[in-house]
């Protein structure tokens, strides 16, 4: 297939539709949100158009700093867990027979069809004292009595990794399928063990894909607000939970908008840093 750079204005026309959609459904709402974040909050009421920094000033405190820090840490942890689990899994999957692959992929896709609510309630039942998995351990004689595993950080992490895992596999899958098998064969011929070949050949060859996947899962996890509520204690609530509280329950749209803008800026900053670090690594 030959690729030519677009010559005339008409060549750009396929871009018009996505561009319009992006403008209508992303740029305009985001602009509105930025505008609202500078509006004046009317306590006990709603807001009036104005240009004040109060909403940002309220956010800049040790308390919200802590919550933001936790949210980022949680999203990074989810991203790393997902990639660490999904990379070997997907690698092995690509080496299986076509029919086995199809079964696995359909199963993963069906997980995607579950809503966050269902995932949250299912895990909270699995982790409960009265009906949870510890009852099986008790029946097997491995534990003396059943106990609740939720609410806890581990429960939040498990729920979120479960939710993000199918996305991770689906993003990694095409890159791993395209990976030239002769690379690993060469490594094996030269005496590397399968494990060594995986870490010294497959992983470095996929460095860019892995970085991109990490960023995608990170951003996906950052927006999660239901699972931390269902499976965690209040100290495991993410910034998204507090944004929801302000927007929906306190009717404080300006403050909610300011927090959301801040979250987006920090996210973009982190993504930019990752990309720059990746480029430097390549140059070296």
């Amino acid at each position, binding site marked *: 297939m030959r690729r030519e750079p677009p010559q005339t204005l008409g060549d750009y026309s396929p871009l018009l539709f996505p561009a319009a959609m992006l403008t209508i459904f992303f740029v305009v709402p985001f602009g509105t949100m930025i505008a609202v974040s500078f509006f004046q*909050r*009317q*306590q*006990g*009421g*709603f807001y009036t158009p104005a240009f004040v920094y109060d909403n940002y000033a*309220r956010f800049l405190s040790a*308390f919200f700093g*802590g*919550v933001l820090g936790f949210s980022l840490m949680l999203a990074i942890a989810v991203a790393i867990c997902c990639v660490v689990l999904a990379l070997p899994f997907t690698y092995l999957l690509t080496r299986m027979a076509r029919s086995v692959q199809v079964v696995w992929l359909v199963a993963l896709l069906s997980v995607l069809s579950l809503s966050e609510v269902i995932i949250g*309630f299912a895990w*909270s039942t699995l982790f*409960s*004292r*009265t*009906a949870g998995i510890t009852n099986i351990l008790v029946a097997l004689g491995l534990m003396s009595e059943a106990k*609740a595993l939720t*609410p806890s950080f581990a429960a939040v992490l498990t729920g979120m990794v479960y939710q993000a895992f199918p996305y991770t596999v689906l993003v990694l899958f095409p890159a791993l399928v395209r990976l030239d098998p002769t690379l690993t064969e060469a490594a094996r011929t030269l005496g590397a063990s399968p494990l060594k070949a995986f870490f010294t050949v497959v992983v470095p060859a996929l460095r860019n894909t892995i970085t991109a996947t990490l960023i995608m899962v990170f951003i996906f996890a950052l927006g999660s607000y239901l699972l931390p*509520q*269902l499976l965690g204690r*209040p*100290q495991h*609530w993410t910034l998204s939970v*507090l944004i929801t*509280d302000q*927007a*929906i*329950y*306190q*009717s*404080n*749209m300006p403050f909610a908008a300011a927090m959301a803008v801040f979250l987006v800026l920090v996210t973009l900053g982190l993504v930019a840093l990752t990309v720059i670090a990746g480029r430097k690594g390549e140059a070296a």
Partner: protein
Amino acid sequence: MNINSIKRRTLLGAGLAGASMLAMPTVLRAQDRSLKVGVYGGYFKDSFDKNIFPEFTKATGIAVESVAEPTGEAWLVQLEQAARAGQAPADVSMMSQVAMLKGQATELWTPIDMAKIKNASNLLDRFVNKYPDGRVAGVGAVSWYITLVTNTNVYKEAPTSWAAFWDPANADKLGLLALVSNSFLLEVTAKTFMGGTNALDTEEGILKTFEKLAEVKPNVRLWYRDEAQFEQALKSGEIPMGQYYHDVTGLAAADGHPVRSTFPKEGGIQDSGCWALSRASQKAEEAHIFIDYMCQPSIQATLSRKVGTSPTVKRESTDLTDKEFSAVSSDIEPIVPRYDLYQTKSDWLNQKWTELIVG
């Protein structure tokens, strides 16, 4: 062939009807009177749909389209945003007191003309919500209690005081509401330990109450926003104690679940909902008929029997027996929430509360 032609004819008919509806909206409205009424979704709405709205339509000829509204202030935000755009997702909505006050701040509620509410004389004064200048913003719909609930398998004896929340023996066993403005735990703390809700008059008093309330944290397993989450855990005994709605708990117990609702000696928390009319609504007349109908003592008694809510009209005016009345209420003086605080100090309270439970 038949099917095809029918389809085409129905389509044509529907198109004509649609066009005429657009052309003559007033005529249609006069023929077919209707009203969109917002009530809390789930069990509440189902009960109203089954026991109340059909009778109302029969009595007045006004069709009711019920709209499921979310609890808390989420519905207020939606109503306000819609009213700004001139839309009313519901004409009349059942609103909690905190939401009523917040809606007042933006003149969201069309004042109710009490001359048109003939049954108003039965209403208890505290259930009529007024603007500061005396105009009526909302009329009492139902009132309900939040009480101390326990799982009967785990707690053989019912607790008698809210102080049970502070008992170290109940570590990691409580389910409490997650928001300052719907849990009313500040009032509970003040009434139980500070001699009454007047302790919340000053900021120092509120901070002291927060300090006392912070002691409850190690006992709390779940701070819930979603009622279903706690109800399920209470029934199974996963979270065997907490605060919950007296009406729903009674119904769960009647269904055979091992739960009970207790009015502690300090009193249950009494909250209420008002019928309020959105300023964007075009159906003021129907709304007044509806509100008047709902103020009848007989309807209030039906609500107590079928929904488990407490009447907003004088008890003497209803035909509720002692047994029926005590099932939905109690003689113990209730804890009445300090609604004023959630208007004048809402952001400060919210900030302190969030720091308390998250920090």
